[in-house]
């Protein structure tokens, strides 16, 4: 009686569970895939020193020395380094780069300005990063200003590798050198 009924059903696979499967797969992949974009401060190290190679002569005024000492103090200056709060590094550096020969103790021109970073062995890492962050910030702001005034768009909007971006980069080249650590 009932058996005959059952034979006449059209055999369909229930689609109700499909949603569950999909959800679970989704959850699974959500858990498994790590979207871990590495962010950080990029830096180009100076190449290994050649034997018997004298460093090229650099005018004192064109080299901003930044020293982070063991107590986590930041000292910066072109002639004599003086203690500087980390929060002022950016402003000082901007003044230094955009001096264009006015102040005799600061740089001749932005493309000659060099930042030399020196640390000591016991320098706390986070102070160093804060300082480097300020340095990068100074350049970022300068480039942004140049980009805004020349092209009317923020620097970030310029296409990677485009002519315009190159021009701005050449205007304010990041010349950051890591001084040899003193043992």
């Amino acid at each position, binding site marked *: 009686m009932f058996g005959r009924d059952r034979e006449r059903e059209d055999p369909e696979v229930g689609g109700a569970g499909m949603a569950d499967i999909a959800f679970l797969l989704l959850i699974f992949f959500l858990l498994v895939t790590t979207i871990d974009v590495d962010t950080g401060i*990029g*830096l180009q190290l100076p190449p290994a020193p050649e034997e018997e190679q004298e460093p090229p002569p650099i005018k004192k005024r064109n080299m901003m020395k930044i020293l982070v000492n063991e107590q986590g103090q930041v000292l910066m200056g072109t002639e004599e380094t003086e203690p500087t709060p980390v929060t002022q590094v950016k402003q000082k550096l901007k003044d230094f780069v955009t001096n264009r020969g006015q102040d005799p103790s600061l740089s001749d021109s932005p493309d000659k300005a060099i930042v030399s970073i020196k640390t000591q062995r016991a320098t706390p*890492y986070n102070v160093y990063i804060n300082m480097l962050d300020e340095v990068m910030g100074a350049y970022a702001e300068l480039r942004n200003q140049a980009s805004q005034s020349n092209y009317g768009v923020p620097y970030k909007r310029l296409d990677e590798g485009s002519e315009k971006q190159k021009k701005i980069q050449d205007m304010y080249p990041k010349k950051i050198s890591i001084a040899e650590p003193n043992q």
Partner: protein
Amino acid sequence: MGHFEKKSAKTSQDVPTSAMPDVVFMLLIFFMVTTVLREVTLQVKVDFTEAENIEKIEQKRLVSYIYVGPQKLSGNKLGPVKIQIDDSIIDDVSAVRNIMYDKLKEEPRLIVSLRVHDEAEFGKVTDIQEELREAGTLRVNYSTKQEQPGGG
């Protein structure tokens, strides 16, 4: 009046789906057990420091990481600051040079990402940087988290 509701068959028409979640769970567990994720198990503690002006590295293939931080010991204790590359602790800093040189041979555009515990001393990093210079891997990146602008 003249038309009745169409009667559905007396037996339920669909395959019982009550066991479906179990099937899916089995699948899930199966996948969880079998997928091998190439993740580095950290043997050192790394708490990132924060910075505002950071950039993203889009090409993950180019990045190789060096971890620097206090070694995780059993029982939640922290040991001395160690260097870890891939899955092994490097005791001798000068080994960094060869490891990185080999990696550079495989991938000329290598970026070395330094993931350093924020309270570590910079001396270790200096040593590593010297080794990287010798190896010729000059593109480095200090991993930091994004700090909100204006936040200190």
